[in-house]
Structure formats: structure tokens, C-alpha cells
């Protein structure tokens, strides 16, 4: 039971990463590699700020702002300098590695004995602190995004990803939309990094490796498991996908795999999920599980 609670708590905290990537990957049609640098950036900023005596909440906000700045850089590289979107993300991601080392001063910084956002929750039963914190953050962020996407501005943002030529012909400044989307997305990823670092009790320079796969897994498991949904429901599905993904990992680890195998397992899980629609054609797996997939077909 404890392990399951822990997995749910981790799923909730990591869901922010999936939601962040959803904004760029699914809505803007932009495969943003920046997140692999932004995630440890958020962790590095939060942990360094906390060890320098800044309040956990302040440190977490700083981490989100740092993520936002990384998104801005990728956005400018991509829209103003006209660098290919994938490459722009890789450039920022690579640069972030050095920046993260500079911020932390060494490759691993511990939060041992420091106050974190989880400290006030320490009286809850074991692992329920992450569940509680995760739930609150996810509720606020999801509600905020649902509101945002239903505004005139949010609709213009969605249209930019859906059909940029049309968006421009309606007077939407698509470059600004891409930049703002990347900033928003990476702010969420930075926030996620800050929360995970506080939950783990440390920041590590290598903690970004494989994050894009984890984010994609949350998105795609959510889509595969829940099928045809409205945009708002899809945002919620990302969080559920993130929790399911943690439960799958838990199950796999219970089978005796080592935590060193996690990135391999993550990739296999994601690859299997992405293959499902194709496998369905060959193996005729039952409908609802596959129906939703990636299209909006009714």
C-alpha cells in the first residue's frame, strides 16, 4: 500500500512535466527538447535558493521563472533566429547543463535538514505529503490552464499550433504565440523540477536525463487509456497518465528490475504505448483501449 501511495504521489508531482510538454508537443506541434535542461534547472535553482536561505515557496517560484527564461531562449532561437525547433531545444538544453553546474557549484546538492514545501506536511502518514502537495499544485495549474485555453488568447494559441498559415491570416502573431507557449511550458517544467528536488531531498546535475520520455509517456498513456476526449479532459488525462506510468514502473520494479534500468523501461513502456494503434491492426485488441489514440476522429 505504501508503495502505491508513493507512486501516486510521484505521479502527481511528475504530471506537471507532462502538462508542460503537452502545451508544446500536442498543442503547438513543437517537439521541445529544452525540457531535459529545464527540469534540472528548476531543481538546481530551487535547491540552491533554499540552501541560501530563501523560503521554499520563493525558491519554487524562482525555479519556475528560470524555466520560463529557458523557454524564452528556445523561442527566440526558433522564431527570430529561424533555427529548426528541434535543434533550438537541443541548444538550450545543452547550454543549460553548464548553467546548472554553475548554479549548484557541484553536481549534487542536498537539502538535508532544510525546510521544503513538504516540511509543513510531515505530520501526514508516510508518502501522503507528496500526494497532498501534488494534488494542490495540479488542481491549481490544471484549472488555470483550462481557463487560459478557453480565452480569446488561448484559442489563438491553439490555432497557432493547429494551422499557422490560417492563424497568421487571421492576424494572430504566431511567433509571439510560440514564444509564450514555450515560456509557459518550461515554467511548468521548472516548477516540476523544483518540486521533485524537494520531494527527493536533493538536486542532481543528471536528473534531467530521460525526462522528455517520462513526459511523453504521461501524455500518451493518458491518450491511449482514455480515448476520445475534449481538450480540457485531455489535460486531466495527462495527470492520470502520469500516475498510471508510475504504477507501471512500480510493477516492473517489483518484478526484480533495478532502478538503473529505469530509463530503458521508460522507453520500452513509451514505445509500446505508441505502437498500440498499429498493434491493434495486427492483433485486433479490443476497441476502447486504442480508440482515442492521437486523432480526433469520432
Amino acid at each position: 500500500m505504501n508503495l502505491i501511495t508513493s507512486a501516486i504521489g510521484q505521479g502527481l508531482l511528475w504530471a506537471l512535466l507532462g502538462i508542460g510538454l503537452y502545451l508544446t508537443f500536442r498543442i503547438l506541434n513543437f517537439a521541445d527538447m529544452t525540457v531535459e535542461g529545464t527540469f534540472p534547472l528548476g531543481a538546481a535553482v530551487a535547491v540552491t535558493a533554499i540552501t541560501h536561505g530563501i523560503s521554499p515557496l520563493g525558491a519554487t517560484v524562482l525555479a519556475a521563472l528560470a524555466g520560463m527564461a529557458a523557454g524564452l531562449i528556445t523561442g527566440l532561437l526558433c522564431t527570430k533566429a529561424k533555427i529548426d525547433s528541434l535543434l533550438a531545444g537541443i541548444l538550450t538544453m545543452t547550454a543549460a547543463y553548464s548553467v546548472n553546474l554553475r548554479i549548484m557549484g557541484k553536481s549534487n546538492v542536498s537539502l538535508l535538514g532544510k525546510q521544503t514545501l513538504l516540511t509543513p506536511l510531515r505530520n501526514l502518514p508516510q508518502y501522503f505529503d507528496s500526494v497532498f502537495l501534488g494534488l494542490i499544485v495540479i488542481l491549481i495549474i490544471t484549472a488555470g490552464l483550462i481557463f487560459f485555453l478557453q480565452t480569446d488568447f488561448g484559442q489563438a494559441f491553439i490555432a497557432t499550433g493547429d494551422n499557422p498559415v490560417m492563424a497568421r491570416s487571421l492576424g494572430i502573431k504566431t511567433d509571439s504565440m510560440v514564444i509564450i507557449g514555450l515560456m509557459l511550458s518550461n515554467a511548468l517544467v521548472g516548477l516540476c523540477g523544483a518540486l521533485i528536488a524537494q520531494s527527493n531531498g536533493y538536486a542532481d546535475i543528471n536528473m534531467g536525463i530521460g525526462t522528455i520520455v517520462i513526459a511523453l509517456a504521461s501524455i500518451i498513456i493518458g491518450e491511449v487509456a482514455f480515448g476520445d476526449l475534449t481538450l480540457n479532459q485531455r489535460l486531466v488525462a495527462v495527470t492520470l497518465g502520469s500516475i498510471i506510468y508510475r504504477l507501471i514502473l512500480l510493477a516492473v520494479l517489483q518484478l526484480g528490475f533495478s532502478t538503473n534500468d529505469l530509463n530503458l523501461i521508460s522507453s520500452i513502456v513509451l514505445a509500446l504505448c505508441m505502437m498500440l494503434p498499429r498493434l491493434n491492426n495486427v492483433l485486433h485488441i479490443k476497441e476502447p483501449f486504442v480508440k482515442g489514440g492521437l486523432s480526433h476522429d469520432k
Partner: protein
Amino acid sequence: MTNNREPMLQLKDVSTVVNAGTPNQTTILKKINLTINDGDFISIIGTNGAGKSTLFNVIAGSLPVASGQLFHQGVDITTMSVEQRTSFLSRVFQDPKMGTAPRMTVAENLLLAAKRGEKRHLIPRHLKQRLPELKQLAASMNNGLEQRLNTATGNLSGGQRQALSFLMATIKRPDILLLDEHTAALDPHTSQSLLHATNQRITEDHLTALMITHRMEDALTYGNRLIVLKAGQIVADFAGKEKQQLTLDQLYDFFED
């Protein structure tokens, strides 16, 4: 700034060049002069490569001019961006996929277009309140579009999608409407019904429109003016009575070489 006695759109000595500075440098439009008056509905014909699409790209702002100037109601718009020009100009593309957002619903697309050229704020869009109005608008196309307001646009037929593109271009009255062979990708029946609806809308709303077409019959039937483009120049410009008396044979003569 604007003065209604000024022409709606004026092109002065507009030339465009592609591959400038390379051995492949080609001049597409050659010193085009064109004055479009308020309420003009102009059919544009010409062979492939005559510069019809280039002319539209120049007017819409997606292609810079090499020399010359453009004026909208007397205001120089030569250096205005595509986004800025959308405040007075709208366009329907030939490809139905170009003019609509496939994953957004019909109603969402219409709402987006209703704010063409306006700043978009962080305020709720009020989709539900506007549905009855959008439904009525969609019904004016007579092709069942009003039944599909909540359908993702990607699931519409080509004809419905193009009808939607046309509605989106006119939901907020444009000063200038560009129709770039907007019925060419449709079957003959659907094409005719969309052209009919187009003509009706342009006449009723007294719109100023330019329509590229490859069908001579349509060029003769619709509009009060007809322009023939050839090798980047306007070789004929018929208006009013002169246009009404034109025959198909006369038009085909322009394509003899």
C-alpha cells in the same frame, strides 16, 4: 487617415523579383498598376505562371515587393506585415486545409475568425452564448454546416470545409476579400453552389473582392470587372457593360500564343 473617396486598394508600379541576386533572378510582376474601387468584384484570369497568386501574395503581404507601392484607402501599406493587413483584408485559399484549424471545431474556427486582425485578450471567449448566431451564419451556406458546429473541422468534407473558410473570411466584414481559386478543389456541383453563395454574400454585403479562377465561364458570370494577367502584366481590364458583353471566345483568345 482614411478617406472614403480614395480607392479601396491601389497598386502603383508594383514589381516582384524571385531569387534576386542569383543567376535565376526572375521578375514575376512587372510594374503593375491597378486601382480597385469600393464594391468592385473582380475576376482574375491568366495562364499558370502569369502572376495571379503572386499578385495575391503581394496584396496580402506574404511576399515583399521589389519596387512600387500599395495603398489601402490612400494609406501606404507597402511595408505592413501579413498580420497587420488582416485588420482590413481576408483571404480564402485554394486548398480547403489551408483556411481552417483541423483540430478545432467549426464554431471555434468561426469565433477565431470573428476577431480577425484584433488583439486577443485573456478574457473568456463565450462560445456558448454565441452559438445561435454562429448556427444561423453556418446555415446560410445551405450545405448542412450548421449541424456540425461542434465537429472538428478536420472531419468535414472538402466542400463544407471550404464553405467554412469562406464564412471565416467574411464573418467580420473585410475591406478587401481575396478568393484564390477557392472552388477549384471541389466537385462541379459543390463548386457551383459555393460560388453562388460567394456571389450572394459579396453582393448583399457590398464587399470588395478579387477572385482568381481558371473557369472562364465563372469569370464571365461573376463580378463587375475582369482582369487578364499575362507574363506579369495586366493585358486587359474589362468593367461594367464592356464586361457584360464579353464572350468566351474573346477570353480564350487571350490564351492563344
